[in-house]
C-alpha cells in the first residue's frame, strides 16, 4: 500500500530545535543568577535566597498536587512543620541520642512522605471542598500538637534547629546546599510532569472520566504523587529548621500555606517555570516593600481573589504566546483510514463482548431492564433507540462506571469487573463520550498520548530520574500518537491546546485517543453528533475501516443513514429493553421500530 507508506511528520513543527532553545533561556538565566549570587557577597540577600530555595523545594512538589492534579491542598504548611520538627528534635538530642543532621534531614523526608500519603488519602474519595477542609484541619492540628507536646517540641518556647556541618556550613555553603536540592527538585518534578504520569495528573484534573477510560489508575497515581510531594515538603522543613535556627509553632502560620498555594496559582496550572517565578516573587517582594509587610498576607489573599476571578491561567498563560496565534480559519478534517494498519494489528476475530441480563436502576428509574447484547470482533454493531432508552447507560456498564443490580459483562468469555473503569484499557476496550472529554489545558498530542497509558513500561521512579526506559516509552508514545492523529486527520493541530479546537475536531481527537489503546473493542457514543455531512461520510469510512482490521465497534448513534450504511448488525433499545435486533435491512422493515423510533 503506497498511501500507508507515506511519511508522517513525527514532530510537530513548534517543538523543533529553535523552540527548545527558546524554552531553555529562562532556565539558563535563573541558574546563572543563582550560582553567581554569592559574588555580591551580601549575606542578607543570601538568607532570602536560601528561603526562596527552601520554599521552592516544597512548592515544586506541591505544584504536582495543585497545579497538575488540581487537588486543592491548602494546608501544606503542616508538612513543612513536621519536617522542621523532625530534623530539629532528632538533632537536638533532648529526646534521644542526637542524630547527624544529614541523616535527620533524610528522616524528615520520610516523615513528610508518610504524612503526605495520609493527607492525600481523602483526596481519592472526597470532593474538592472536603479535601481542602481536611488539609486545613490537618494543619491546625499539627500546630496544636506542636504547642501541646512540650516534652518533645518545647511547646511555645520552641526548639533549636541544627547547624549543618561540612561541606555545607552556614552561609554560602548552606545556600549552595539549598540551591542544589532545589535544582534537583525542579529536575525531578519536570521529568515527572513531562512523562505519562504528569499527563495522567492533568487528565485527572481536567477530564477524570476520560483519564480512567484511558487506563489511568487515579488512586495509585495520586498516592504516589502525594508521597513524593510530601517527601519534598519534609526535606524543605528540615532545611527550614536550620535556616530559622530556632523554631516555634508561630513560625508556621497558615499564611505560609497561603503563600505556597498562591505562588503556584500565580504561576499557572500545569507549568513548572511559572510557579517557580511565583515563589521567587512572593519570597522577595516583601523585602522591597517593607512598609507593607504587615499587609502581606492580606495582599496575597487579594491577589488570589484577582487571579481566580480575572486570570485563572496565571503567569504561564500570559507567557504562552504560541497558543494565542490565530488558527487557520477553514480547517478540513481529512481522515486517512489507510494508516490504521500501523496502529491496529490485524486481529483474527472470533472474540466477543457480551452483556447478559443487565438490570440497572437509579432509585425508581429503570435505566436498563434486562439487556442482552453481543458485539463480535470485526463487526460494526449499531445501538439505537429514543432518548432515555439506555444506550449510553449500556456503554457505561461495559466501561465499568456503573454496577448493575443484575447481570454480567463478559469479554471473550471472561467476566469483566464493574466499578473498575481504569482496567478496561488494559483489556483493550476503548471508548469515546457523548460530550467530548477533553483535557483542555493540554495539547492535542498530549490528549491523544493519554490513550497510550497502558502501553507505558517505565515506573514512576524511572520517569522521575529520566532513565532510558522512560525515553523509549516517550518516543514510542509520541510516534504512535502522531500516527493516530494522522489517521483521523488532525496531525497539523498536534501542538495546539485542545480547548481551542472545534467541536467536530474534538470528536475525531477522541477517536485518535481511543485508537491509542489498540482496541479489540471500541465503543463510540454519538460520534457523528454535530458533524457536517462530509465529515459524517469520512467518519463512516473510518469506522468501517477500524472494524475491518478486526476491532469490534459498538456504535451509539442517532443518524439513521450512518447506522444503516455501515452497521453489520443493529440492536434497538426502548425503555431499557431490546425492542429489535438484526441486520439493517431487517430493522428498517421492523414495524414497531419504525413506529416507535424511525418514523414512517
Amino acid at each position, binding site marked *: 500500500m503506497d498511501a500507508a507508506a507515506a511519511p508522517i511528520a513525527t514532530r510537530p513543527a513548534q517543538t523543533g530545535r529553535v523552540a527548545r532553545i527558546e524554552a531553555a533561556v529562562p532556565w539558563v538565566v535563573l541558574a546563572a543568577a543563582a550560582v553567581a549570587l554569592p559574588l555580591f557577597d551580601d549575606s542578607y540577600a543570601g538568607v532570602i535566597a536560601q528561603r526562596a530555595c527552601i520554599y521552592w523545594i516544597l512548592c515544586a512538589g506541591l505544584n504536582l498536587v495543585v497545579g497538575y492534579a488540581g487537588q*486543592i491542598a*491548602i494546608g501544606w504548611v503542616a508538612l513543612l512543620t513536621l519536617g522542621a520538627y523532625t530534623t530539629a528534635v532528632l538533632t537536638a538530642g533532648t529526646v534521644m541520642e542526637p542524630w547527624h543532621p544529614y541523616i535527620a534531614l533524610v528522616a524528615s523526608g520520610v516523615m513528610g512522605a508518610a504524612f503526605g500519603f495520609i493527607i492525600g*488519602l*481523602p483526596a481519592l*474519595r*472526597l*470532593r*474538592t*471542598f*472536603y479535601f*481542602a*477542609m*481536611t488539609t*486545613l*484541619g*490537618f494543619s*491546625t*492540628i499539627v500546630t*496544636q*500538637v506542636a504547642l*501541646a*507536646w512540650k516534652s518533645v517540641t518545647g511547646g511555645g518556647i520552641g526548639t533549636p534547629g541544627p547547624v549543618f556541618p561540612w561541606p555545607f556550613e552556614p552561609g554560602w555553603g548552606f545556600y549552595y546546599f539549598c540551591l542544589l536540592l532545589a535544582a534537583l527538585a525542579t529536575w525531578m518534578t519536570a521529568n515527572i510532569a513531562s512523562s505519562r504520569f504528569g499527563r495522567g495528573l492533568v487528565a485527572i484534573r481536567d477530564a477524570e*472520566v476520560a483519564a480512567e477510560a484511558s487506563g489511568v489508575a487515579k488512586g495509585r497515581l495520586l498516592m504516589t504523587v502525594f508521597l513524593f510531594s510530601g517527601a519534598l515538603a519534609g526535606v524543605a522543613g528540615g532545611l527550614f529548621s536550620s535556616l530559622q535556627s530556632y523554631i516555634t509553632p508561630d513560625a508556621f502560620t*497558615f499564611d505560609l500555606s*497561603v503563600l505556597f498555594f498562591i505562588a503556584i*496559582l500565580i504561576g499557572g496550572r500545569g507549568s513548572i517555570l511559572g510557579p517557580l517565578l511565583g515563589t521567587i516573587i512572593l519570597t522577595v517582594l516583601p523585602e522591597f516593600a517593607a512598609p507593607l509587610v*504587615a*499587609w502581606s*498576607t*492580606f495582599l*496575597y*489573599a*487579594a491577589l*488570589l*481573589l484577582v487571579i*481566580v*476571578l480575572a486570570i*485563572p491561567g496565571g503567569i504561564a498563560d500570559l507567557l504562552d504566546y504560541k497558543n494565542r496565534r490565530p488558527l487557520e480559519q477553514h480547517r478540513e478534517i481529512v481522515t486517512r483510514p489507510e494508516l490504521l494498519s500501523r496502529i491496529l494489528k490485524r486481529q483474527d476475530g472470533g472474540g466477543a463482548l457480551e452483556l447478559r441480563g443487565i438490570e440497572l436502576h*437509579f432509585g425508581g428509574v429503570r435505566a436498563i431492564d434486562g439487556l442482552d447484547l453481543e458485539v463480535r470482533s470485526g463487526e460494526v454493531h449499531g445501538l439505537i433507540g429514543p432518548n432515555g432508552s439506555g444506550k*449510553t447507560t449500556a456503554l*457505561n456498564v461495559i*466501561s465499568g*462506571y*456503573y454496577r448493575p443490580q443484575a447481570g454480567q459483562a463478559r469479554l471473550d468469555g471472561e467476566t469483566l469487573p464493574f466499578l473498575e473503569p481504569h482496567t478496561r484499557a488494559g483489556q483493550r476496550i476503548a471508548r469515546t*463520550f457523548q460530550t467530548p472529554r477533553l483535557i483542555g489545558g493540554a495539547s492535542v498530542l498530549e490528549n491523544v498520548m493519554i490513550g497510550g497509558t497502558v502501553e507505558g513500561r517505565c515506573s514512576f521512579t524511572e520517569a522521575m530520574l529520566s532513565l532510558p526506559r522512560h525515553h523509549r516509552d516517550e518516543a514510542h508514545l509520541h510516534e504512535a500518537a502522531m500516527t493516530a492523529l494522522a489517521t483521523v486527520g488532525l496531525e497539523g493541530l498536534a501542538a495546539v491546546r485542545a480547548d481551542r479546537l472545534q467541536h467536530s475536531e474534538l470528536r475525531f481527537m477522541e477517536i485518535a485517543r481511543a485508537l491509542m489503546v489498540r482496541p479489540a473493542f471500541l465503543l463510540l457514543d454519538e460520534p457523528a453528533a454535530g458533524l457536517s455531512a462530509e465529515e459524517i461520510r469520512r467518519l463512516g469510512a473510518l469506522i468501517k475501516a477500524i472494524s475491518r482490521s478486526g476491532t469490534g465497534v459498538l456504535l451509539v448513534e442517532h443518524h439513521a443513514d450512518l447506522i444503516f450504511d455501515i452497521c453489520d448488525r443493529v440492536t434497538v433499545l426502548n425503555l431499557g429493553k431490546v425492542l429489535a435486533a438484526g441486520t439493517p435491512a431487517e430493522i428498517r422493515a421492523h414495524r414497531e421500530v419504525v413506529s416507535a423510533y424511525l418514523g414512517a
Partner: protein
Amino acid sequence: MLESILSYGLAIGAVYALIGITYNVMFTASRVFSFTAGMLGMVGGVLGAWFITRLGLPVIVGFVLVLACGALIGVVTEIVTVRPVLKGIEQHLYVLSTLAFALMVQQFVAIEWGTEAQPFPRLLPIEDGWVDQQFVLPILACILTVVGLEVLYRHTLIGRAFRAIAEDSYAARALGLPEQRLRTASFALAGMIGTLAGFTGAMMLLAYFGNQAILSFYGFVPVALGGMGSHRGAVVGGLALGLFQQAANFLVGGIFAAVAVFVVFIIVLLLRPEGLAGAATARRV
C-alpha cells in the same frame, strides 16, 4: 467535673452547630461550600467587643450592629466571590475565591484590631447563679435559630422559595423565582447566623482573629458528618463534637482530643463521603 464538661461542651457545641448551619444556609441556596462561615463567627466576636467595650455602645445596639455587619458581609461574599464564579465554567473555583475573601477579612481584622485575644464583655447584667450566661447564651441562640429557620422555611413564602431553590434551582428558575436575589438573601441570612454564633460564643472563645480557622474546621465537621444541608445533622453533630472534645480534654488531654476528632472525621468521610445521614448521589458520566 461532669458539670463543666456538660456546660462547656454543650455551649461550644452550640457554637459549632450554628457555624454548621451557616455553611448549610449558604450551601442550600447556591451549592457552594463557602470558607466564610468560620470568618463570620470570628467577626461576630471581634465586632461585638469593639462596639460594646471599645465604643461603649449599649449591648442591644452592639448586638444589632453586629448582625447587620454580618448580613452585609454575607451580601458582599455573594456578590464578589460566588456570583462571578458560578457564571464561569470552572465552578469549583469558589473554593479559592471564598477562601481568599475570608483570609482578607481575617487579615484586615488582625491589622486593625490586633492579633491578641481581647476579652469580651458580659452581655447580661445578672449574677451567675446556677447558670452561667457564657454557656446559656450560645445554647439559647442555637435553639432560637433552629426554631426560627423552621418557621421561616415551613410557614413563609420566602422560606418556601428558599426550599424550592435548594431542591431544584433549574425548576425554580423556570417557575420565575428570582434565584439570584434569593441567593443573596440567604447569604445575608447566613452572615447573621454566623456572627450570632461568634457573638454569643465570644465570652468563652474571646474576641480573637485566630478563631477563624478553628471555627471553620470544627463548624464543618458536624455538617460533613451529618450530611450537607441538614440542620438537624449540624445540631446533633455539633453538640456531640463539643461534648466529645470537652470530655477528652478533661480525661486524656487536648492533643488527644484534637487528633481524635480529626481521625474520626477522616475515617467517616472515607467510608461514607456523603456523611452519616446523607444520601448518596452519583451520576458523573
